[in-house]
């Protein structure tokens, strides 16, 4: 009898432990709360569901515990489902929630009873779920096998969808560049079409034309001697700027002559002519000097002479001029040519 009583107590204890481990259900009045893991043992890093089930009267509001990012220390919550209500009977309702959890710490983890609250008869009541246990195992080590190197990450093959944005961007950039080139070419063509190319005139042509105009104006003859010399020196100074790249307009007569010498100008006769014109012009412009008519004429002629004799000589004319102008040159050239021929023959 005593032995049978002991066996009965033993079974009762085992069944109680069994119920505690796998049922975790708590009932208060008409409310029951149950929490359970999908599995009670997982490998480190495995993800499993932790489910919460509450059965309650339809008219009662039960408040679930609020979770942050962990269920308990070291058990992380990855996802939380919304609280789902399912009608069970006319009077009762099932309310479910599941949490996707994982753990990266091996060992046994205990989840204490979760607190649920509800209000009945104007009083806040609490109900706790049963505590539960989760065993987290590490990977078993097979020490019989050889140790291998860490494998590098595999290179994933490029897909068309990955390349597509680059392809489209490149195409668009090339199109924009081509369009810009085309636009600027068109614009240049239009400009060329409207403005015909006009070669710039050499400074001596401009200067000689201006001297002609000055002569036509007959300024000194009309007692405008100062204006006459102002214009005359201006023509010469602009010519010197174009011909010798001297900033003649911004420098005095003495400085102009000094700059001209520095350019390597070595025609003393022309230098003196220019010096005389500039010095006389300075006297007229700044010292109220009135030159003789002959001096006015000479100044203009000297200006013509200076420009004509300092203008750049065209290379074509150099070769043509002596041949056409002088018959003696022809005979001289023939003589030279004949001499060269005879020299060649004699040397052979």
């Amino acid at each position, binding site marked *: 009898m005593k032995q049978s009583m002991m066996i009965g107590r033993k079974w009762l204890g085992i069944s109680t432990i069994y119920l505690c481990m796998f049922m975790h259900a708590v009932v208060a009045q008409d409310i029951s709360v149950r929490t359970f893991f999908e599995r009670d043992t997982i490998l480190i890093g495995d993800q499993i569901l932790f489910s919460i089930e509450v059965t309650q009267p339809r008219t009662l509001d039960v408040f679930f515990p609020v979770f942050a990012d962990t269920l308990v220390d070291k058990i992380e919550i990855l996802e939380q489902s919304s609280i789902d209500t399912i009608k069970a009977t006319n009077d009762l309702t099932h309310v479910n929630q599941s949490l996707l959890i994982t753990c990266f710490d091996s060992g046994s983890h205990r989840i204490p009873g979760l607190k649920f609250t509800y209000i009945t008869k104007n009083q806040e009541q609490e109900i706790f779920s049963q505590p539960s246990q989760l065993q987290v195992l590490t990977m078993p080590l097979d020490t019989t096998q050889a140790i291998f190197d860490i494998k590098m990450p595999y290179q994933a093959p490029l897909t068309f969808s990955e390349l597509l944005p680059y392809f489209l961007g490149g195409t668009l950039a090339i199109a924009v560049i081509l369009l810009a080139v085309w636009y600027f070419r068109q614009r240049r063509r239009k400009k060329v079409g409207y403005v015909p190319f006009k070669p710039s005139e050499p400074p001596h042509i401009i200067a000689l034309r201006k001297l002609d105009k000055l002569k036509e104006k007959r300024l000194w003859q009309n007692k405008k001697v100062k204006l006459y010399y*102002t214009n005359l020196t201006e023509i010469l100074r602009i010519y010197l700027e174009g011909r010798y790249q001297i*900033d003649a*307009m*911004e*420098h*005095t*007569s*003495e*400085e102009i002559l000094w700059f001209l010498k520095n350019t390597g100008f070595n025609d003393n006769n022309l230098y003196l002519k220019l010096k005389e014109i500039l010095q006389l012009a*300075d*006297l007229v*412009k*700044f*010292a*109220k*000097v*009135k*030159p*003789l008519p002959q*001096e006015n004429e000479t100044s203009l002629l000297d200006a013509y002479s200076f420009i004509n004799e300092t203008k750049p000589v065209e290379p074509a004319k150099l070769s043509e001029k002596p041949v056409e102008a002088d018959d003696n040159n022809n005979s001289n050239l023939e003589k030279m040519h004949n001499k060269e021929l005879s020299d060649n023959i004699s040397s052979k």
Partner: protein
Amino acid sequence: MTNQVDIKEINARIEQESAFVEMIILEMNKVIVGQKHLLDSLLIGLLSNGHILLEGLPGLAKTLAIKTLADTIEAKFSRIQFTPDLLPADLIGTLIYSQKKEEFIVKKGPVFANIILADEINRSPAKVQSALLEAMQERQITIGSETYPLGDPFLVLATQNPIEQEGTYPLPEAQVDRFMLKVVIDYPNMEEEKLIIRENLAAVFPTPNSILKPKDIVKARQTVREVYMDEKIERYILDIVFSTRNPGDYKMEKFTNLIAYGGSPRASINLAFASKAYAFIKRRGYVIPEDVRQVCHDVMRHRIGLTYEAEAENITSEEIISEILDTIEVP
């Protein structure tokens, strides 16, 4: 060539009256080796009744040149060394009580001379500088209740040392403007310095002869005023001065942010006077653009105020003046 009568007459007179210039230069060259620009500037100041601010390092014969000039014209010369403890009374004079006469008598200061050398003017505080600059402007001194005219010619040559600026009192811009010329003295060249060494080693220090009297200078000044200046030259002077005020109007926009203030009307007046004096020194009865360009740097360099941007970019008034002269059309 037929000249108009007035120019011909002026030219002839200047030819005759400016003969002393060459003699003065000759006498000064006995004592001073080189420094041609300094000698020309001293004569310009003397002939156009303008005061001169000399800037140069010590030992460049500034004092000797001025003393020699005073000797050549038999002028009374005073040298005043400006120090931080100098008082206006030390300069202009004061009233002192005579126990013998039992009254206050006037003790005139060193400023009562024809040629004054104000050595290192920036070493004295503003009250002493003002006393001298007022005398320069008014050409008279009031001591007690009496006003005394200063000598004629009255030429002040103030020196400034460009180094050792610690403990100095720089002249305000308004007072610097009262100097007709600011002459920057540079080192002599190698040949000149060789001569200086030889003269000093031989201990041969020639003394200049006096060529003329102060009244001759006063007379020459009248002739300088008569030097003919054409309207074109006047226009050129105005273009130069106005371009320092409104550089943008003269295609020099780059200077707009570099010049804080340009030349005053006093700059135009002094540029015209100095050009006439330079023409006189060159024994001409008329001014040519060359004369304006020769004196332009000395007349304008202390009259152009530079901005912080210019100072940050190390741009000097010298460079601005050179650029202006190279940009403005010469008549």
